[in-house]
């Protein structure tokens, strides 16, 4: 019986030679992650179970990123609860203000995930690490609690959809456009319960950061995980960030997929997801004049250094539209430092943007850029649900960093070409 990439990783972590779709298995976890919103519920359940210690101090990981730096007294209490827990259990990888970043940008950067790992995280975008050839998936706080206590989690082995990539992206088109294009095609439940596996010669034409963005939004198609085949670029990235040994899994030649899509990267255009679902995608031939009030460039989806350079290229020497507020959020402290050192922050501030400390803040309507009734934002974030960034009558349009930056300049949803000619 042949297996997909995902199935091979799961089999190896369950101590089995083979697994098949639908099988229930218990797997060993290489990392268990939580943030300042989901960890407090997990800590309560961890104590309810009667657990007295975490399964591995090196593998339990908490990142204070959603409402940190604390947005209010209750958020402060939640971070304190996490901090006290990590102190008590001597958790090595606890990341607090000043050392933290947005979790899914931070973990790869710190070398905490390598190819072949199994990672669960009490955050739906934990699927990001599939970009590095790991199996990673979002779970709830109870699963996190049991994972912290036992180092294990049960899974139903998923079937998979294969995406065979070919060609190269055009200028100003990036990983965000690829994943929005795919979600527009298959829908927000198009990969429900399944793996999305990305293979083909086109993978080589995508940077690791484009891949992180694509895997990050696999959950937006309902997927359990979104995984890329490991290549030289993955190996180079992982070796630059970690000393750990790793295993690169490849699907069997005759692995069975529920569906196969061929995606020609050269045909993908700048894509925008209109309210209120990530599947409501349009390209610029279908987008008329949509005036905007705010732009957010950042998040676990698009807060990487590469994303900031794409925005800076467009904003350099220009001013943003008078009625637009632009909020730029480097995803980690290292990215922030690099943006300062290389003059990106200067470009942003001179254009009229604010540059924030790493935080998930506005993406989920927490703080740092909440919208009023009737306001519209273009955001490089991952969800445009009703009320996601503020008032229920506000609107979020999901786009790439290049489109977001172009829209800052014109004050309406704009393509990069519109401002760069």
């Amino acid at each position, binding site marked *: 019986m042949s297996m997909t990439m995902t199935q091979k990783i799961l089999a190896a972590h369950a101590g089995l030679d083979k697994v098949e779709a639908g099988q229930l298995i218990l797997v060993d976890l290489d990392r268990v992650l939580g943030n300042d*919103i989901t960890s407090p*519920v997990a800590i309560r359940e961890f104590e309810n179970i009667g657990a007295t210690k975490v399964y591995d101090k090196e593998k339990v990981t908490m990142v204070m990123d959603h409402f940190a730096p604390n947005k209010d007294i209750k958020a402060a209490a939640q971070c304190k609860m996490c901090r006290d827990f990590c102190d008590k259990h001597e958790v090595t990888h606890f990341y607090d203000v000043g050392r933290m970043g947005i979790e899914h940008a931070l973990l790869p950067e710190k070398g905490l995930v390598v190819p072949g790992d199994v990672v669960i995280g009490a955050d*739906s975008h934990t699927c990001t690490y599939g970009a590095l050839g790991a199996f990673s998936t*979002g779970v709830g706080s109870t*699963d996190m609690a049991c994972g912290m206590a036992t180092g294990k989690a049960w899974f139903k082995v998923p079937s998979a959809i294969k995406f065979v990539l070919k060609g190269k992206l055009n200028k100003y088109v990036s990983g965000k456009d690829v994943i929005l294009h795919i979600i527009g095609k298959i829908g927000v439940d198009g990969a429900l319960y399944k793996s999305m596996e990305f293979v083909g010669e086109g993978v080589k034409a995508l940077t690791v950061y484009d891949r992180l963005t694509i895997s990050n939004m696999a959950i937006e198609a*309902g997927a359990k995980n979104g995984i890329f085949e490991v290549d030289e670029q993955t190996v180079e990235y992982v070796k630059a960030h970690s000393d750990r040994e790793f295993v690169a899994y490849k699907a069997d030649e005759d692995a069975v997929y529920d569906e196969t899509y061929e995606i020609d990267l050269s045909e993908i255009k700048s894509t925008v997801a209109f309210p209120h679902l990530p599947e409501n995608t349009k390209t610029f031939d279908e987008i008329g004049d949509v005036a905007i009030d705010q732009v957010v460039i950042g998040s676990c989806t698009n807060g990487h250094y590469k994303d900031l350079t794409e925005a800076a290229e467009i904003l350099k020497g220009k001013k943003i539209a008078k009625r637009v507020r632009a909020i730029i959020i480097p995803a980690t402290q290292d990215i922030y430092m690099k943006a300062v050192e290389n003059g990106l922050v200067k470009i942003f501030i001179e254009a009229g943007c604010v540059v924030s400390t790493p935080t998930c803040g506005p993406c*989920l309507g*927490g703080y740092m850029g909440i919208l009023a009734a009737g306001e519209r934002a273009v955001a490089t974030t991952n969800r445009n649900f009703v009320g*996601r960034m503020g008032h229920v009558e506000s609107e979020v349009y999901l786009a790439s960093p290049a489109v977001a930056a172009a829209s800052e300049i014109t004050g309406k949803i704009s393509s990069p070409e519109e401002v760069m000619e």
Partner: protein
Amino acid sequence: MIFNGKAIKYGDNVDTDVIIPARHLNTIDKKELASHCMEDIDKDFVNKVEAGDIMVAGYNFGCGSSREHAPIAIKESGISLVIARSFARIFYRNSINIGLAILECDEAVDGISEGDKVEADLDNGVIYNRTTGKSFKTQPFPAFIQKIITNGGLVSSIQKGDIQ
């Protein structure tokens, strides 16, 4: 396990952001979470929901964030069961883990209207619309999952020694 209540109905893709908006995630207090349940999709929900009521929805219920606060808020608000055409995978898992009963059944979603009196027999996978007299059959959960739900969730099941 038998549930009885009136149906409260929603559409497709009800996401966890409308079930419990992130602005309220600065607490883990179940009652406080329940007091904001569904407020971004249905401001009247907290006023009309009564203990035992049954939520009925379309495809991909609970999509989006992994926040366990979402099924917690629904359960604490008094909802005894959610029937949908399909559930997003993290919500599905979280519901079982915290002991919120859920069922997938297309026919029941088609055959139940807002306010109908509904009875659901979880052990046998049968849903009755007492207002219209129709009944719908669906796949019941295996016994061990039903036991987790009856016990009030995975942690309670571990505490009771039902899961080692």
